[in-house]
């Protein structure tokens, strides 16, 4: 049962990859009907067909089969590429996607008969030439060829690129496992000229000669019997394709990598313990060994982290199709440019940024880019441009989505926000242009006058921001009216390990993700002001509420009581260290007794009993093996904001 389950999982993840290939190339195909592209698509459809029929998803197999036929005809130039065919292909891809999703959910999905019909109509050409000859090739390798299986594999790959391998003697898996002497026979159905094939095969090293054997039919195997023949036919789709991946890639369940990451974290901690235990011994040898151990652990950690990294391409790949579809629907002309799609980031992040990005791109298509008419009037190129880019910069990943559309007007934003009751007129009058732009991230605000099918559903910008913050990332916006808007997302390289600052408050050690810290300052208690009894400080003309951590946690804080007395005469004069946390445009200052230092921390959950403690995001294990809680900046900042807001409003 478990094996079957695992195979299903594997099937869906591989099927989606092939689907992605189909969809990507379909786009390119529209622009130029390149043979290589057709071959790639054909292979993808072919593999998908094989896989789905093996696992028993017949409707998927049926649809891919018809697609394969159509592709075959395009490849052999019996048909020429038209917009109709391209559209048909997109429809197929979408339909396949839906089928896959349904099947994955365990529901029954049926292939659209009408679509099938249209597909076969499209692939019907007047002069249907049906007779194809299976060409037999006897490939002989030079005697004493090293690593025969590799040569054989290369030969099979070349042949596969040129046609459809129908049969091998001995069976394909035997060839791959070197169970042949010096020669084997491949029967192939191909459009290529036989001499062309032979010359290509000869070009592969260590091939002694290739002899053609012309056959009208696949021969019946005498030595291995029917059973093997069937098996080799079945394995044709699987083994050859799979074989190519197995050499380079191994699929591993994500949680196994997580487990490895945990174990690496454990090693780090244990080494620290060893160092401490070994100190009294003052042994040079021990120190050396520990240093070496440290280097190995570091390398191990990097390798495990690398393993968890996947290219952002996985997310980006869905957008060309999406933009194409949306712009058609909206009657806009849009070109999507993608940069830096090979940028890698942690897979757990990749999984979560897809939705926010979909939303941002929809916004760009919907609100950002103007209609062709409007653009002409504004003396802009009729075709709008959306640029999607990703890059690494100083320990972070930046993803930018920019459009050269109409941009946003801060004043207009404010008006909408007031109209929608998001802010009051008084609040609006205090906002700078920059702060007004931040309004787009507030709940209940949509700049489009009408709610459209595109942007009016799914996540809002407020959700986009909270998703990013949950990932220890952030989002900002820049815009110029009439020239366009850029959203910039900043994300950590990995979720499991973040840079943290260790601070001591009241004898307790807390860890704060560096990402949430704006700055650390030392101030005299004299500079503390009060609004409605709530202490605040003024940093560069900005009022920041002060929040006592013990108080937030419902405990007593004598220090704080002393300097938050309303009567400033009684506040003892001294310097206090404040850590300023930031979330969105809001800040809070937290008095800290001591800054201990900065280090990489592994984020751990606190488990069921302690899951929902406000202000605590989790815990980490420090170098000495002790546990330290990680502060949740978002909650703390929000609390501070509420308090100072109350004060300001009731003043």
């Amino acid at each position, binding site marked *: 049962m478990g094996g079957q389950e695992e195979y299903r999982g594997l099937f869906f993840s591989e099927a989606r990859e092939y689907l992605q290939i189909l969809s990507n190339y379909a786009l390119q195909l529209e622009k130029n009907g390149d043979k290589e592209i057709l071959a790639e698509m054909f292979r993808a459809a072919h593999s998908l067909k094989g896989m789905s029929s093996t696992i028993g998803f017949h409707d998927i197999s049926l649809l891919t089969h018809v697609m394969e036929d159509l592709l075959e005809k395009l490849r052999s130039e019996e048909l020429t590429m038209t917009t109709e065919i391209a559209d048909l292909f997109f429809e197929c891809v979408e339909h396949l996607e839906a089928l896959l999703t349904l099947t994955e959910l365990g529901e029954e999905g049926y292939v659209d008969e009408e679509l099938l019909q249209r597909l076969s109509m499209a692939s019907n050409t007047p002069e249907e030439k049906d007779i194809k000859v299976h060409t037999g090739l006897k490939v002989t390798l030079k005697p004493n060829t090293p690593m025969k299986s590799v040569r054989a594999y290369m030969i099979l790959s070349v042949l596969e690129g040129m046609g459809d391998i129908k049969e091998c003697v001995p069976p394909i898996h035997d060839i791959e496992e070197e169970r042949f002497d010096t020669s084997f026979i491949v029967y192939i159905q191909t459009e290529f000229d036989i001499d062309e094939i032979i010359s290509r095969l000869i070009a592969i090293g260590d091939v002694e000669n290739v002899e053609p054997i012309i056959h009208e039919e696949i021969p019946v195997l005498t030595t291995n019997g029917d059973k093997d023949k069937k098996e080799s036919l079945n394995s044709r789709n699987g083994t050859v394709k799979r074989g190519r991946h197995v050499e380079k890639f191994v699929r591993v369940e994500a949680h196994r990598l997580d487990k490895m990451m*945990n*174990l690496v*974290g*454990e090693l780090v*901690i244990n080494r620290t313990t060893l160092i401490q235990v070994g100190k009294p011994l003052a042994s040079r040898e021990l120190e050396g060994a520990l240093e070496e151990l440290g280097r190995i652990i570091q390398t191990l950690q990097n390798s495990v982290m690398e393993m968890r990294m996947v290219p952002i391409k996985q997310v980006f790949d869905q957008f060309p199709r999406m933009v194409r579809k949306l712009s058609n629907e909206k009657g806009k002309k849009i070109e999507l440019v993608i940069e830096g799609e090979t940028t890698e980031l942690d897979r757990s992040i990749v999984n979560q940024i897809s939705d926010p990005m979909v939303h941002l791109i929809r916004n760009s298509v919907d609100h950002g880019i103007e209609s062709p008419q409007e653009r002409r009037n504004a003396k802009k190129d009729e075709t709008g441009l959306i640029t999607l880019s990703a890059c690494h910069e100083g320990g972070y990943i930046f993803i930018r989505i920019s459009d050269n559309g109409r941009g946003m007007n801060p004043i207009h934003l404010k008006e909408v926000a007031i109209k929608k009751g998001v802010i009051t007129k008084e609040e609006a009058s205090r906002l700078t242009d920059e702060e007004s732009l931040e309004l787009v991230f507030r709940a209940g605000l949509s700049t489009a006058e009408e709610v459209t099918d595109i942007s009016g559903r799914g996540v809002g910008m407020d959700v986009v921001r909270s998703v990013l913050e949950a990932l220890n990332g952030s989002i900002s916006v820049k815009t110029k009216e009439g020239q366009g808007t850029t959203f910039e997302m900043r994300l950590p390289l990995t979720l499991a390990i973040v840079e943290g600052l260790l601070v001591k408050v009241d004898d*307790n*050690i807390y860890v704060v993700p560096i990402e949430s810290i704006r700055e650390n300052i030392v101030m005299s208690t004299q500079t503390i002001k009060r609004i409605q009894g709530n202490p605040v400080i003024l940093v560069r003309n900005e009022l920041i509420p002060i929040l006592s951590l*013990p108080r937030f*946690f*419902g*405990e007593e804080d004598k220090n704080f009581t002393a300097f938050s007395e309303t009567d400033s005469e009684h506040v003892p004069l001294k310097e206090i260290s404040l850590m300023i946390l930031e979330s969105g445009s809001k800040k809070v200052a937290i008095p800290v007794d001591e800054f201990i230092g900065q280090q990489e921390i592994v984020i*751990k*959950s*606190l*488990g*069921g*009993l*302690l899951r929902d*403690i*406000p*202000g*605590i995001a*989790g*815990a*980490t*294990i420090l170098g000495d*093996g*002790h*546990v*330290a*809680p990680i502060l949740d900046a978002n909650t703390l900042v929000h609390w501070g904001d509420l308090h100072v807001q109350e004060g300001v409003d009731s003043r």
Partner: protein
Amino acid sequence: MNTDSYAVARLMMQFVIFNIINEEFAIDIKKVKEIIRVKKSTRVPQAPSFIQGVINLRGDVIPVVDLRKRFGLDATEITNETRTVIVEMRDDLLGLIVDAVTEVLRIDEEEIEPPPKNIAGLKAEYISGVGKVDERLLIILNIEKLLTSEERLKLESKDLGKEGSR
């Protein structure tokens, strides 16, 4: 509990036995992951008061409950005998600090009685049963109920007075 037929054999269940004051408690051994010495824990703000803190168990952060505090007594004084019993509850691990772990016992299922209304001050809902071995009464705890309920408890042991005056 009696899902299996008696025809097979008499069902014996295994329990880890531990003490709090001089009361003997039992936990189904299937729920016990391991027994460790008491580790220094980190306090978690705003956690329920009987949760002493969290410890690092080979890279997992797990909460530790002082059972004495859960039973409305003063915090456990750590001695050479004090142990943390690591148990599994709904896929989470957690530690229980107990005065001492004494033994692992097989108890005939027939010797396990349904919980009385009140034993040692504990209501029936916190107890899965009472095991009788010779003259001893072993209170089999319902850990899940014990740790998810907010109710204040008060353990009443016959030896409590003695303990207090020590």
